[in-house]
Structure formats: C-alpha cells, structure tokens
C-alpha cells in the first residue's frame, strides 16, 4: 500500500509538473502576444501542440540517436524533478529528494541538454548543429553565475541538501532572496539563460536557424521533447523557489511563487532583442559573475 502510494506520488508529481509547465508556457505566449498587440493562442495551446505531435500518423528518424536524444531529455527532466522536493514538508511530492543533493542536480540538469545535442547531431541538419554549438557555448556562460549563486547558498547554509536550505528559510525575512540578494540576482540572470528566452534564444533563433537543434524532429520525437520541456520548466522553477523563496508548503503557494519568478524572464524577454552567442557568453562572464563573486564574499563575511 505504502509502495503504491509512493509510486502514485511520483506520477502525481510528474502530472503536476507537466500541467504547470505547459500552462506557464502558454501564459507566456499570451503575454508576449498582448505586448505585441496580438490576441495570442489559448493558454492550453502547448498541450494541444503536444497532443497533436503525439498523434501524428508517421514520424521520420535519422538513426539511433534520434530515439536516444529525446529519451535522454525526458530522463533528465524527470530525474531532476524527482530529486527536487516540490513542497517544504509533507509526505507527498518529496519523492527522492532525500537521496541526492544540489551537486547532483547541477549535473543531471545538463544531461538533458547533452541528450538533445546528441539527438540533433544525428540528424545531419546543419541548422541543428549550429544551434547545438550555440547552445552548449551558452551553457558555459550561464552556468558560472548559477554555480556562484548556488555556492553562496550552500556555503551560507553549510549544506548541499535542498531540504536543509529550505528548512533554514523559515520566515519571509529568512528567504535567501533577502538574506543574500546578490546571489539571487546572479542566479536569476543565469535562469534567464537557462530558459533560452530572449535575449538568450540564439541557439534556437527562430527565423534564423529554422528552430535550431530540434529542426529535424517531428511527431513523437518532438512531442517527447516538448513534454520534457514542460516538466523541466516546472522543475527549474521549483528549484529556484526552494532556493530563494523559501519553498512552498502547498501547491498554490508554489504556483504563485513560481509564477512570480517566471514573470522575470518572460518580461525581460519581451522587451529585449537577441544577444549573439559571444555577446551572451561575455555578458554572463561579466556582471552576473561579478555579482556572484560578491555574493560569496558577502557570505564569507557574514560567517
């Protein structure tokens, strides 16, 4: 019984993540459209897209890695999700979060990128390859402020466990966004890069590279990737909520906090033009990195 409950917990988490993920994405599409004075698609448009893709009659593939790539991607998304405590406490939505820590999350999050890159590479489409080249280069950019921010937090709380970091932020004043705003700034800028929204959307660069890495994907493959993307978006947001906003004790709180966080990249994305790859990299290596370093110094000084 207990086992059944646990397992159903897993699926519930995935379901929630998927739903929230596509809703948020739909929300962004609407928001963008409104700013551009369009009506925009319905909020559930992404779900429709995914359903359409999965139900397509036929799909083409260019070889083994086209199966492997999306599989890697979904693996990374779901594993990330499974190792993040979705809520502060309670039995549900904890999943495997006691079994791994932040360092693990850092790495498993990249796994999906690599998987997608491999899948894209197999297709032989030059646009995909260019996209991969840009995307991987950009990772090297934003991971630095991200790790700086995480390090600041881990050092401050003397733990690498997400649970303990959450537990330490027991009041609003204890939220890391207020305790260590510098780390938050560095982290959120890195988050901008992670979302691949403008100004950091050069890897996918619609209208320039077709759609970048997934150019040759269609049908079930693209469907799998989009599913994965929705789950991953939720996982990332939850991670940031846990890290900086003290986590959430129920799903609603989580939703609000996550939406608040999500608005930042979305709004910035609406109003900024696209960075070129090296501009993006250099941007990440400049201000966010300096801010991140300052945040660590701040932590060291506070201890």
């Amino acid at each position, binding site marked *: 019984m207990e086992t059944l409950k646990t397992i159903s917990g897993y699926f519930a988490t995935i379901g929630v993540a998927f739903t929230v993920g596509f809703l948020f994405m739909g929300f962004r599409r609407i928001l963008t459209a409104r700013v551009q004075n369009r009506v925009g698609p319905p909020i559930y448009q992404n779900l429709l897209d995914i359903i359409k893709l999965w139900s397509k009659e036929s799909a083409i593939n260019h070889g083994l890695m086209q199966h492997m790539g999306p599989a890697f991607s979904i693996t990374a998304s779901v594993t990330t999700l499974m190792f993040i405590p979705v809520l502060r406490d309670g039995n549900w939505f904890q999943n495997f979060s006691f079994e791994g820590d932040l360092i693990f999350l850092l790495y498993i999050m990249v796994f999906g990128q690599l998987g997608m890159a491999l899948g894209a590479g197999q297709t032989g489409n030059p646009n995909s390859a260019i996209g991969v080249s840009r995307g991987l280069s950009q990772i*090297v950019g934003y991971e630095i402020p991200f790790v700086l921010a995480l390090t600041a937090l881990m050092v401050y709380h003397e733990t690498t466990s997400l649970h303990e970091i959450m537990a330490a932020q027991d009041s609003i004043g204890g939220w890391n966004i207020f305790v260590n705003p510098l780390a938050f700034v560095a982290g959120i800028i890195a988050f901008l890069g992670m979302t691949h929204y403008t100004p950091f959307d050069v890897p996918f660069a619609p209208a320039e590279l077709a759609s970048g890495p997934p150019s040759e994907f269609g049908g079930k493959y693209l469907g799998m990737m989009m599913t994965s993307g929705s789950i991953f978006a939720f996982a990332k947001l939850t991670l940031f909520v846990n890290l900086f906003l003290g986590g959430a004790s129920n799903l609603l709180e989580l939703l609000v906090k996550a939406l608040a966080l999500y608005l930042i990249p979305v709004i910035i994305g609406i109003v900024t033009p696209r960075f070129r*790859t090296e501009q993006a990299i250099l941007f990440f290596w400049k201000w966010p990195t300096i801010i991140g370093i300052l945040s660590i110094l701040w932590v060291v000084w506070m201890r």
Partner: protein
Amino acid sequence: MDITGIPFFLAVSFGGAFLAYLMNFAHRFLRNAVVLLTVSASAALLFWLGDETFSMEMGGFVLTLGKTPYSLFFAGIVALLAVPTVLFSFTYMAKEERPAMYYLNLLITIAAMYGILFSLDLLSLFIFWEIMTWSSFLLTIHKGGNATKAGVKYFLYSAAGAYAILFSVVILYNMSGSLLIEDVARSFVLQNPLMQLMLAGTLLFGFSVKAGLMPMHGWAPDAYAESPAPFTALFSGALSKMGIFGMGMVLYQIFLQSPFSLPVRELLAWAGGITSALATLRAIQQTDAKRLLAYSSVAQLGYIVMGLALGTPLSMMAALFITLLHGVFKAMLFFAVGAVYFRTGLTDLNELRGLIRRMPVSFLTVLMAIISLANIPPLGGFVGKWLLYESLIQSDHYFLVIVAFFSSTASFLYVYRLIFSIFLGQEEKEFEHVKEVPFLTMQLPMLALAAVTFITGIFPGIVLAPISSALTYLGFPIQHDMWSMSMLFNEWGNRMNLLAMISVIGTVFLTGFTILYFYRMRRTRYVTTKDIHTSGEVPTENENLTYAINFYQPFERAAHPVLSKSIRAWIDWIGRSVSELGDFLRHIYTGDGQTYAWYVVLFLTFMLAAGSWIL
C-alpha cells in the same frame, strides 16, 4: 624465488618484455601470447603480492622495494589499463613497422611503472622513473615524422622534471644518509623551512611535469597526438598518473610537517584549477581528435592535482577516484579514436563525419566515455566530481569551485565536438565501406572499460575501499561512515544515494526510450541523413552540409583574450633561447687555428694574472 615477492613480480614484468622481443623472431602469435601473458600474469600477481620488503645494494646505494596500500591502488590502475592496451595493440599495431620494438618498449614501460610504485626509496623510484621515461619516449617516436619532434619535446620536459627530482634526491640523500622515504621524511623535518621549501618545490615540480600541470604541460598535446593510440591510452591513463603518485607521496609523506606545506598546497590547488580551466579552453579549439583528448587529459589531471593538494579526506578520495576513472574513460576515448584511425586513417575532426552506423560499438564507447568525462550521472565520472566539489566547497575553496565548474561545463563543448564530428552529422560517401573494428582485440577492451565506468558509477565502493586503505596509509583518517558501497557522504552529512539515482534514471530512460521506439513503430520511417529539410532544399549526394569546421567559433571569439596567449610559447621561447645561445657559443670555435692559439695565450695570461692577484 618467492612468487609472491616483488623481485619475482618485477622479473616477470621485465623478463616478459625481453622474451616478447625474442619471440618476435619466432612468430608473431607467439610474441603476442607472451605479451598478453606477461601483462595478465603481472596483473594477477598483484593480488598475491606479499608484504615483505626487499632490499639490494647497487652502486653503493641500498635500493628497497615493497608494496604499500597507496602504491597498490596505483598498480591496480596500471594493471587495469595495461591488459586492454596490449589487447588493443595486437590488431592495431599489425599494420605498423617494427612491432617487436613497440612491444618491448611497451612492456618495459609497464614494468617500470610497477617499479616506480613499488619503490620504497627515492633512488629506485628515480631509476624506474627514468626507465619509464625513455621507454615511453621510444614509444612516442615510434611513428616517425612529427612524432620524433613530439617525442624529443616530451623527453626534454620529462628530463627537466626528472632532473629536478634527482636534484632533490641527491640533496636529501646527503642530508639523511639514507634513501628510504621514511628516513628521508624523518630528517626532512629537521631542515630549515626554506630548504624544505626548495626541496619539496623541486620534487613537486618534477612530478608535476609528468602530470602535465601547467605551465609544464607543453609536451602533452604533441606526445599524445603522435604516439600510437593504444599506448596513448596507457600514456594518459596510467603513465601520467605516476606524477600524481609522486606528488601525493611528496606532499603527505615528506612535506606535510613543513610550515610551507599549506601555502604550497594552496598554490598547487590553484595551479591545478587553472590548468583544468585553460586546458579545457584549448581542447575546445582543437581540430585533431587526439590533440583534443590530450588537452582534455591535461585538464583532468588538473582536477586531480586540485583534489590532491587540498588534502582533506574527501578531496583525496576524489583525487584518487578521478585518477582511476580518468584512466578508464580516457583509455576508452583513445581506443575509440584509435579504432577510427585504424579504419579510416584519420584523426582530423574536420574530415571525419557520420560514422555512427559504420562503427556503432566505437560510438557507444565514446558516448559512455564522454558521459563519464562530462561527469554526468549515472556513470563513474560523476562520483569523482561529486566528491571533488563537495570537498572544495567544504574546505572553503569557493573560487576553485567556480574554476572547476567552469572547466567541467566547458568540457561538454569539446566532448560534444568529438562525438559529433566523428560519428554524427551527415554520412560521407568516402566512409561507406568502413567497417567496425574486430571484436576480440579491439571492441572487447573498449566494452570492458565501458562496463567499468558503469559499475563504478553505481558501486563506487568497489574503488573507494582500496582508496581508503591507501589514504589511511598516507595518514588520512578514513572512517567507514565516509563512504559505502553505493552511497556517498560529504563532511556536512549530506548524502548521495547512487542506487536511487540509477533506479530513477534507468526507469525513466528505459520507459522513455521504449515509448519512443515502439510507439507507432511501423509508422516510423528511417531516412538517411541526407534527407533533411534546409530552407526547403534537399542536399545532393555529393554535398555534405555537416557543420563541423570552426564548430565553436562564437565561443572562441568570446574566449579570445585567454586563448590568444600561450604558456607553451613561453616555454618554447626558453628552449629557443638556449638553442640560440648554443648557436652563439659554438662560434667561439672559429675554425681558424690561430684563434685557438690566441685563446691559449689569453687563458695563460689570465691564469698568471689571476694567480698573482690572488696571492
């Protein structure tokens, strides 16, 4: 002779080398049998190695051999890589010239590595060290052509390192009257701190050359790129680790008590960090697969040095774990690249492409290896990096964390370039008839090592057990609650459950893959990589649209300020200056006999004047 003794062990290792050389005159199968037998026998003998030490006198010095848990761990690495290496060599070297010479030197190198590890005194260590150096030099120049230059470069760097070691050894011997490491350590602490600093500094410098630590890494790219691929695997995987072995020995058996120990280790850790970062950037630039891997090796050795220098139990565990793992996955990569070279004759990333369907096993090997190299769970590489980051954070080296993380992330770039350029992208007509390499001699070593990365990723305890006894020997208190078979713990008490990890990853991956593969399988249509849509056009047969040349141009533009400077150029400049000095000096010998007479008279005048002046 006692078959559990070190003398017998070394006799087998060295004797096998010469026997193999002789057997070459009989038949090559006989030779191969001897070669394989030798390395497997010495690998097997490692398990039965007795504890007693063995001393002999040579040239007025007492040489002592014996095993320690620390050396046994490294010997395990050597054995683990030596067997696949010789196996891989059999087919690979069949096409090359002078195989007898190759096997002779290869076995000598392996035996000398064992010798280094089982040396209890500094002189025998040095002797085996030099034997290893010259035999590996001969292996490096095996191909001729550019390899000769690379080999000489390798040797000169090594010589600089080795003689730095010898310098210290001579002085230490003079101070303590003994060569035994423990005696040396005892008298070492009695010296004044500056002397200690100088001696340990030269020793560390010497060992770090072999480890390819910047700025003394200049030999590595050339030597790795030019040596025969099976040997390169051993070269990067095991041979360069001898430098790590020596550094660990110096830092924790000799130098630990010195007041300068901490600053020096701090410095070393930073050197390691900078090495890993800069070498990673260089690796991204490379267009030759072996050079890319060479820089990657330098970078990985940087991590190891970092962990080694920090000197916390966790960091030491990390260092030794990466030492093993790097050996394994780098050997896989060199094997795979060697396999590709064996079939296509190419290592140039700009020319190779689309081999995935032709050489699937090699592809799988590379895939496993790069996942391990990029520290991505669930393979072994992740465990090493996990330990390393935890230890870096917990020993308050926050900025090293960043440096390390930067190079770790940046390594995705080059590993992707490697696998993409060789195996992915559009297929080339040129490679249509390329076949996968033979199973027994070439696939098997690769797959076996791939299995190792997988197993160590889930059950690192298999490796951590010998590591912790090695560390206990070095004086690190490794308790049993610091690791378990498949669970990692940091010093803050956080844990990483690898079994949980593999279950989640495994389940999701298998499910995802199954769904993708079988869902509407009938409706899924395979098309070639030529059949793509690019702006509505389909490329013709002869066009290859793979985007592989200048793959990371934007990134290189961003990193240009760093990449435009070259440490190697500085070292080369020193070499050139010495050479020019030599050219200048030889003009002393003008060729005119009368000038020589002038020299004589001038010298006599000088002697007379100096003599009377002194009086």
